[in-house]
């Protein structure tokens, strides 16, 4: 059950946050409010009146708008078409595009957004696309605005701008609901915070006077897992295991996604890559693992050129925990033991000669499932039936099993609950202690800062800066992530 007797009260002009772990029911609760899901029990009242919201259409009619974490925009349509979709202005039975543009311009002006209604959505930046989403809701007359994990794809600066917009809207009498799991951010922007756990609304606190630690304990429902222990700094004499010299590579759309990237990762070191999504992180991981060809520069593993297919590189001790688990790391319809064999299906204990070694595979899988406490401990379970956390444990177990020299880790904790996050982090720290070179690419700046010994910031496919642990400063890294810190904000809220 996704929700169980969850309650929520919103006042006019209020800025409220809903926090909880992944799967705590935040998004489900909002989807009920937005008419996407029907509650089995309970009721919704707006202005004291009991309403039944059977569809987003009815929610919109009642003044409820939602900005989804994954934008609900049609990329090859214009901004205006996206905004008016579902209640289009018509003339003689035809769609009146001119009037649609005028209407959207009017809405933008009223709320202080600057957007070109004739631009195609696919040509806009992520930040602008989010603004289109907000305009979409406001255009439909939303008085209650739900923002689902709105800062997940934004830089700290873009996030600040969004908070400004939200405060303005609240001041103008709108109700704004933030869904988030970033506690510091929630505490800085919301007035009232509702905590969800396992489908229930378990607590409600005022932001003033609450600490992030208190909030986190409410979310988890108990003491937090141990923080990452202090550790020895990396010895300057440690040899560089992985080295990139002036590496360039093309991206998905033909343009250069990486240009002249040089970096090193030493033995027993975790090196973080910070940056806003889409600045070359995926391409960097792909170039390293052999999934994408470098168009220039050289890669070295222990001083020898790192070339060849993903299989070759795996054979030389480079393993990969990919960002897109469902697509890149596991095969859901296959069994857990078959997934455990992926990448090593040609060698013992998974094969002898051309034949699959069924017993060897079973034994190794059973051992790893036990070591990593995967539930259920059934080598024949279907991988897709495991929870996200357990799937990730299988992936981590597989990739760390033969004591790799280099581990390329991308977004390893996305979508995991706090317990699983802690386990993954502990494993990475343990690999560092064992002497592995770890390259951690993550969009979660907190994660990078917590784990890394050294950080490179990627912007526009280039290294925009390098900081060692002692120099870590969120604001400074945030500016680097934006490339040009003085870039004029695209829009600003009124006032």
């Amino acid at each position, binding site marked *: 059950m996704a929700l169980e007797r969850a309650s929520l009260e919103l006042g006019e002009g209020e800025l409220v946050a809903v926090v909880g772990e992944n799967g705590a029911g935040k*998004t489900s609760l909002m989807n009920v409010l937005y008419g996407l899901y029907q509650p089995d029990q309970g009721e919704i009242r707006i202005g004291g009146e009991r309403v039944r919201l059977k569809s987003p259409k009815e929610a919109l009619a009642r003044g409820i708008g939602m900005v989804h974490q*994954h934008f609900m925009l049609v990329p090859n349509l214009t901004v205006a078409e996206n905004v008016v979709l579902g209640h289009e202005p018509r003339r003689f039975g035809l769609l009146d595009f001119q009037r649609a543009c005028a209407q959207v311009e009017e809405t933008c002006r009223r709320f202080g957004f600057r957007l070109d209604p004739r631009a195609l959505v696919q040509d806009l930046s992520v930040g602008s696309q989010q603004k289109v989403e907000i305009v979409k809701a406001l255009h439909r007359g939303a008085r209650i605005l739900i923002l689902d994990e709105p800062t997940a794809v934004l830089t700290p600066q873009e996030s600040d701008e969004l908070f400004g917009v939200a405060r303005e809207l609240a001041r103008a009498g709108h109700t704004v609901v933030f869904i988030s799991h970033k506690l510091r951010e929630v505490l800085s922007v919301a007035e009232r915070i509702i905590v969800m756990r396992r489908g229930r609304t378990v607590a409600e606190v005022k932001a003033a006077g609450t600490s992030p630690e208190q909030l986190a304990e409410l979310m988890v429902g108990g003491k937090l897992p141990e923080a990452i222990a202090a550790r020895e700094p990396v010895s300057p004499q440690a040899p560089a295991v992985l080295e990139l010299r002036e590496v360039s590579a093309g991206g998905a759309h033909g343009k250069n996604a990486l240009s002249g990237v040089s970096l090193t990762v030493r033995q027993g070191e975790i090196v973080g890559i910070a940056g806003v999504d889409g600045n070359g992180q995926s391409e960097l991981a792909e170039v390293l693992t052999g999934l994408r060809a470098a168009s220039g520069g050289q890669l070295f593993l222990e001083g020898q050129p790192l070339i060849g297919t993903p299989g070759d590189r795996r054979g030389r001790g480079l393993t990969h925990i990919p960002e897109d688990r469902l697509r890149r790391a*596991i*095969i859901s319809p*296959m069994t857990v033991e078959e997934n455990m064999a*992926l*990448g090593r299906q040609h060698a013992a204990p*998974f094969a002898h000669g*051309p034949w699959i070694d069924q017993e060897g595979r079973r034994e190794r899988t059973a051992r790893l499932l036990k070591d990593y406490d995967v539930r259920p*401990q059934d080598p024949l379970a279907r991988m897709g039936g495991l929870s996200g956390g357990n799937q990730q444990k299988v992936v981590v177990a597989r990739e760390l099993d033969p004591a790799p020299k280099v581990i390329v880790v991308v977004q390893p904790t996305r979508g995991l609950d706090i317990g699983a996050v802690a386990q993954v982090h502990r494993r990475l720290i343990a690999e560092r202690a064992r002497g592995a070179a770890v390259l951690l690419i993550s969009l979660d700046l907190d994660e990078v800062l917590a784990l890394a010994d050294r950080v490179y910031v990627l912007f526009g496919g280039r290294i925009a800066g390098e900081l060692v642990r002692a120099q870590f400063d969120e604001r400074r890294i945030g500016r680097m992530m934006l490339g040009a810190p003085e870039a004029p904000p695209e829009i600003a809220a009124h006032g």
Partner: protein
Amino acid sequence: MASSSPWKRLTGLGASATPSVLAVGASLLICFLAIALTKNDFTVAVEAYAKMFWGGIGDWPGWAEGAPFTALSRPWGEAATKGGILLLTGLSVSVAFAVGLFNIGAQGQMLVGALSAAVVGAAFQLPALLHLPLCLLAAGVAGGLYAWLPAYLKLGRGVHEVISTIMLNWVAVSLVENWLVVGPLRAEAEGSHSRSGTEEILATAQLPRLLGEASRLHLGLVIALLAALGVWLWLTRTRFGFETRAVGLGPEAARASGIPVQRRTYQAMVLAGSLAGLAGALLVLGTEYKFPATLGAPYGFDGIAISLIGLNHPLGVTLSALLFGVLRAGGTHMQLLGVHKSFPELIQGLALLFIAGRVAWEAYRVRRRKITPLPPPGEAASDAPAVGV
């Protein structure tokens, strides 16, 4: 370790076969009603079905009353002939499915295979021990090459295989039946009357009959069954088969783990084409003894139904191919009652239609088993590859 117990495996097998059994049962019932309604006579439908079943599995009641052995062996021969061809085209579609491709082109691959077998069968003077394998080889190679094309178009040029194999079917029909068979490869006129199709193959290229004159049952069924066994071993017991299935079920994950995705895709598609080509060889070397003016029977399209009804598993495909081989062999006997011999194809088409709806059945099973918690955002990618035709 609950799900590894033999009992669980058996019930699991039963549960996965249930939709197929239901689908075939439902379509048999609907088609029964169709005859009863169009003929306005219930007894005609009963009689037609009786003819279909006994005409496929052998006239046991007749044999019990003293009819000769051929009352059994003749139907067997017909059922085996059709079943063998269906098994090979069904396997062709299954093998392509294993690597994640939808091979609608089995028909075209079968056609070029049949033509190659006919040409090699007529052109060379060789001992049977060499001639027959050579014909089979030619058919397999031709079918395989013809299936290599859509694989290349997919991997090299990004053309979806559903579109390309549909197109290539018609290209094959046009070029083979409307050019080669009526033109360069047409049999020479014999005296005053002209002959249709290609030259007859030599006796050394014919598939030997297993029961002599008692039945048309020939080596083809054995070849098809061996092929099914081979495909099963390859897919479930070798690492190459494992890699192939990995490519089919999770191409990106397969690539990331170092599996040569392109090579496995080409291999599987070429194997699929060879199997369809072999089906064509069975038709020519076992029944027709030449490439006729038109090949007629769309066994390649039937392969799609056979494969999906058999859940794309070699064992299931074998069972469904044999079942429909039996029904089709019996179907010709229904013609005496005014029911077209293609009637079993209607049964098969309807069964496939029900199979297409089996996702709903599976969703129902999943719902009944447990209330699935909502996946966190971003984890909603579905297992099914998008088709994008």
